């Protein structure tokens, strides 16, 4: 067992973890943050994407002990003042969601992209979400969703 401290979605935690635990296991099994999904276990599908110290990572490829001292943002941390994030709203409005399993990770990648580049082109959006596989949507409505989110954020919606 190893003791670590980290901040998840604005809350500080001190946890005892197994040495071989991954960040995704910590989030799901220890903290019950089930919006982070495991789709492949090798960092290919991006369903487990979270934002770690400002950058997206696939949480299946981060060992839990490595997250000691870091700040993690998961899909559950996007809501503020009881309101969902503009990207989430935009995904709903354009129909960017089908089976939904890739959706939380996709939204985290979209958020990291817009944090860095508030006005990306469609091609830049495609690249920004290129580490998140989706088998249902063919991605186009997801790209539409990110584009709409740019407007929502500008309008302060």
């Amino acid at each position, binding site marked *: 067992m190893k003791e670590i401290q980290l901040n998840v979605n604005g809350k500080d935690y001190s946890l005892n973890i197994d040495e071989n635990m991954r960040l995704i296991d910590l989030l799901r099994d220890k903290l019950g943050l089930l919006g982070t999904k495991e789709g492949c276990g090798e960092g290919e599908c991006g369903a487990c994407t979270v934002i770690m110290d400002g950058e997206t990572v696939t949480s299946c490829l981060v060992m839990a002990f490595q997250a000691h001292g870091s700040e993690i943002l998961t899909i559950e941390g996007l809501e503020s003042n009881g309101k969902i994030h503009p990207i989430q709203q935009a995904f709903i409005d354009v129909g960017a969601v089908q089976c939904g399993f890739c959706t939380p990770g996709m939204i985290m990648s979209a958020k990291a992209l817009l944090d860095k580049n508030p006005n990306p082109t469609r091609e830049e959006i495609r690249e920004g979400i290129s580490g998140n596989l989706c088998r249902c949507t*063919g991605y186009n409505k*997801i790209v539409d969703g990110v584009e709409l989110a740019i407007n929502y954020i500008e309008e302060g919606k």
Partner: protein
Amino acid sequence: MKKRGRGIGVSFYGTGYGNGFPDVSKAKVVLHDEGKVGIYVGGTEVGQGAKTALLQIGAETLSISLEQILFISEDTSLMPDSGTAAASRQTYNTGNAVKKACENFKDRLIDIAKEELELNSTHGLKVEKGEIYLEFFPDKRISFKELVDKYGDGTIQGEGEFIAQTVEMDPETGQGAPYWPYTFNACGVELEVDTLTGQVEILDAVFAQDAGKAINPHLVEGQMDGGFAMALGYALFEDLKLDKGRIKSNKFSRYLIPTAMDMIDVKNIIVEDPESTAPYGAKGIGEPVMIPIAPAILNAIYDATGVRIKELPVTPEKLRKALDEANGGGGSD
């Protein structure tokens, strides 16, 4: 050298289990507390949007708001069997069952309203916005809530069953009517082949899909994009690499499905030609949307290079080899 080409694929698809097999969908509609209407149906939401489309069919038929409906489609102990979420049959088959159940439920409400409103006949009674009223004397009206308060939760029900019509084919001649309805589509693609690397890049695509009537155009477009991407993977990338029964590409780092960067913006066109046996004319499109794309790609590759690829997938290596063979086994090109 990079060469451009265009190609078209056209296809049809017959909905349902087919071939005379009883293809049954059932649904049940129940009046609940607060005048809410429960639709109970075994149509599974796999991501395609079945729940939303069936809900729309229900709300349309009952002339009530979506918020007034409780939709239950998860638990076998609660809902009737509506067949599988496959064969592109949920919108057509289960949609019909939902529509019938709603209509029967409305008839039942009208019968009861006639008694409650002390009318001589059911003629002229209309169900709308959670009320039953007499169209030419609207003071005669009673709400769903009043009815459920009087009759109790769950007592007023309507059931619906839909069985698709197909005729088993003759085992020797294949003559029969195996599926109904059929759905049609056409897809055109423009692409570029790098004759040195054998890579194919899709540049443009137009995709027209017959939906009978689109219950929810966004959902149909989402299916079309998704079908296109899956077909793109089928044609160009995906390969299990079977070796004596062993799947060598058994993970996402080896079994390559398209990423957002591999997809393009497809020009999707929904063609509407309502089908009279379908709920509001709507036909299933879940499967058809992946069918014409791969052949369009293959025809476009031929248009670009003069090489016919008759075996999927068109990996860069395979296309390179075919180009070489077409050039008499020569070198670069």
